[in-house]
């Protein structure tokens, strides 16, 4: 059940009605029931798994709180819990990758071995809720957050349906704290939430799903294309993945606001980032801060020797790449971002506007080209893209015109795509300047309603009929 489906609309209307009609002290019950129902609809076969992980982490947190003075026992408990949870992630997500990689390495030494593969589907949202759980247990261990004694409220926190499948990866000090509270309907929050949902739907349904048609066409059989077509596919994917995932996050945040719960922002106009470091402060913020707090800082962060600091950065990004998917493509993608940050740390700070602009161009090039590894089906496909980007550039006009004609893009299609991207740019630019979309409330009513109507009509008129509808980050 994806956010941009009719079934989700009906589901949410029911949850919304129930949530605001039950006595406030039972609101968490509605969240818990809706979370499990939502997960059951998406992936019924793994309901027990989420329940098991919830139960184990709940008990561990209680144990950790109780034995705070016993450092040895606490550490053992923490290690056991983290390993127990990560074992599921490893089994479902990485076992086959490891098995295949070992066999490939053995083949290098002329040892023939067939990989032992497990044929199971990756439980939906596993990567996200396991990180939420680990974050909670570590926070309890560190004493940053108290352990939740109410199992129902804790289970409602883990299974909170807006964030369950694709994040944002929430922390206990924010989400669990709010689940404990009783909520009253707040008009301003509801308007803000609705606005976020509208923007999210526009990004996902109008832009991401339209671009997905062309991106899937090219990356589905990458060797049939060359030159500017590949360049366009990279550009389109760069926009698609942003609109797809930030659109999802916007909807999740908006839906939560309608239930009186405020989630932390997950995207802050990442393509306006002035550096790779800045990019990671704006892209999938909940994940990057998770890696910062639970991987990078425990490794020593930047309070170590310069060499060790750079090693920590690389390690964090390689692990982050691996988190996105069990494939060398993702590891390489993480490595590129890590390497770029290491190189960036060696450069002097941009002092002039021209230098900042140049740095922004460089950042965008690194980010866009790194996406090729993220999207390509295999490493060799990714390398094919890079080696054929400039094919036919000898005739620049033909290079560009043929490039987009091959995709079957008419001038009208191109105009529609450019127009919608321009609207996205304007919206993002305003949010960038205003540091959020709250300022939209201060616009004159005609302008504000004009924006809402425009976005609604664009969603109705320009959502492709053959849409991919599934959100890209569901696969992770």
């Amino acid at each position: 059940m994806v956010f941009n489906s009719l079934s989700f609309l009906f589901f949410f209307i029911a949850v919304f009605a129930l949530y605001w009609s039950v006595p406030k002290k039972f609101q968490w019950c509605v969240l818990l029931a809706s979370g499990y129902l939502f997960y059951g609809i998406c992936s019924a076969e793994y309901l027990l798994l989420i329940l098991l992980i919830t139960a184990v982490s709940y008990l561990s947190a209680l144990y950790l709180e109780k034995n705070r003075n016993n450092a040895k026992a606490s550490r053992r408990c923490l290690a056991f819990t983290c390993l127990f949870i990560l074992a599921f992630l490893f089994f479902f997500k990485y076992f086959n990758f490891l098995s295949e990689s070992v066999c490939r390495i053995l083949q290098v030494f002329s040892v023939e071995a067939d990989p032992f593969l497990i044929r199971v589907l990756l439980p939906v949202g596993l990567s996200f809720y396991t990180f939420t759980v680990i974050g909670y247990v570590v926070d309890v261990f560190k004493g940053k957050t108290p352990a939740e004694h109410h199992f129902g409220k804790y289970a409602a926190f883990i299974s909170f349906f807006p964030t369950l499948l694709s994040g944002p990866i929430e922390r206990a000090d924010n989400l669990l704290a709010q689940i404990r509270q009783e909520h009253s309907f707040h008009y301003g929050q509801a308007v803000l939430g609705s606005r976020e949902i509208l923007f999210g739907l526009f990004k996902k349904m109008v832009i991401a799903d339209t671009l997905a048609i062309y991106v899937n066409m090219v990356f589905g059989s990458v060797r049939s294309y060359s030159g500017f077509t590949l360049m366009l596919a990279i550009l389109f994917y760069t926009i698609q993945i942003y609109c797809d995932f930030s659109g999802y996050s916007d909807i999740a945040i908006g839906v939560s606001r309608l239930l009186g719960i405020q989630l932390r922002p997950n995207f802050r106009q990442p393509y306006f980032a002035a550096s790779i470091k800045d990019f990671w402060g704006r892209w999938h913020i909940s994940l990057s801060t998770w890696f910062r707090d639970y991987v990078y800082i425990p490794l020593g962060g930047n309070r170590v020797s310069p060499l060790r600091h750079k090693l920590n950065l690389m390690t964090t990004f390689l692990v982050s790449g691996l988190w996105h998917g069990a494939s060398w493509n993702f590891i390489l993608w993480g490595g590129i971002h890590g390497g770029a940050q290491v190189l960036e740390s060696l450069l002097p700070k941009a002092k002039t506007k021209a230098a900042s602009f140049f740095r922004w161009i460089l950042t965008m090039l690194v980010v866009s080209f790194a996406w090729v590894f993220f999207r390509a089906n295999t490493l060799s496909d990714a390398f094919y893209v890079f080696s054929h980007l400039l094919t036919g550039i000898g005739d620049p006009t033909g290079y560009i015109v043929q490039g987009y004609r091959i995709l079957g893009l008419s001038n009208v299609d191109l105009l529609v795509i450019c127009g919608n991207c321009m609207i996205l740019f304007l919206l993002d630019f305003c949010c960038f300047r205003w540091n959020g979309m709250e300022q939209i409330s201060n616009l004159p009513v005609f302008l504000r309603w004009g924006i809402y109507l425009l976005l609604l009509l664009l969603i109705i008129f320009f959502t492709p009929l053959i849409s991919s509808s599934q959100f890209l980050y569901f696969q992770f």
Partner: protein
Amino acid sequence: MKLYFKKLFLLLLLTAMLLCMAAVFDFTVVGNQYSHFYTASLMDKVDRLCSITEPKIILVGNSNVSFGMDSALLEDAMGMPVVNLGLQGGLGNAFHEEIAKLNIQPGDIVVVSHIDYADDDKLNDPELAWITVEKNPRLLQILRPKDWLPMLRAYPNYAFNCFVRWQRGWNTIPAGTLYIREGVNTYGDFVMRTGQETSTYQFRAGELTVPQVGDACMTRMNKLNKYICDKGARMVVSYSPIADGEFTPDREAYHAFAAELESRLDCPVISDIDDYFFPYNCFFDTKYHLNEVGARLRTEQLIRDLQNWLNP
């Protein structure tokens, strides 16, 4: 909460009003913008279907029927007027069957030839359905109540494209394609242009697959058979052409398909599947479209099948 819902309702109402205004503009000012497309031949096919009052032969199916029949030959041989309703696979089997329902008279023979019998009883491509029926009230009747939701969903895309075509004056005979309304003769057969009669389709490995039989399709076709019988007409099934060559799957699989189809249909299957294998050089521009030679061979076979069925 009241204020929130009041404003939300107002916003949705405004959107609905704007959409209604756009739809009125589209229906009254923009009008039909695909009237030279191949699919617009449906209008002519329906005109012919509804104008014949005597018993007739109605050919139902997708483009395998439109691109694979010589209706004049069939008409001469059977002594009954023929209407070829074959159109486009993207519309789905159900759509094609519904066209025939517009005028079934006692004594009619409805010959159904789908390329596959495992459809999900849905419109395959609702936007194509809009392009096909456009704003013609008579053609809109073809749609079943269950088709209206996907049609409604597809309408904005269709309307926008209509607007662009209207604004640019693009509703003319499309250049560089055979797929135009004018390429279809009075019977509803697609007529090849000069130079294209002998074109041969290049088949590729893995392209040809054995048709399947599905529950939804069988249930619907048996209902159609009952409807036709209640009207005093008869429904029969004949096979669509199958390309016979190096990439064609084993005959056994086709025989199994034919046996299953015959056992699950209430109406007779008048053809032997082995008679509907045609060499690759009988195909024109897709694996379903016969060229002139292929169309004649298939029609001759259908004539034999119909005669054998009528005079056992």
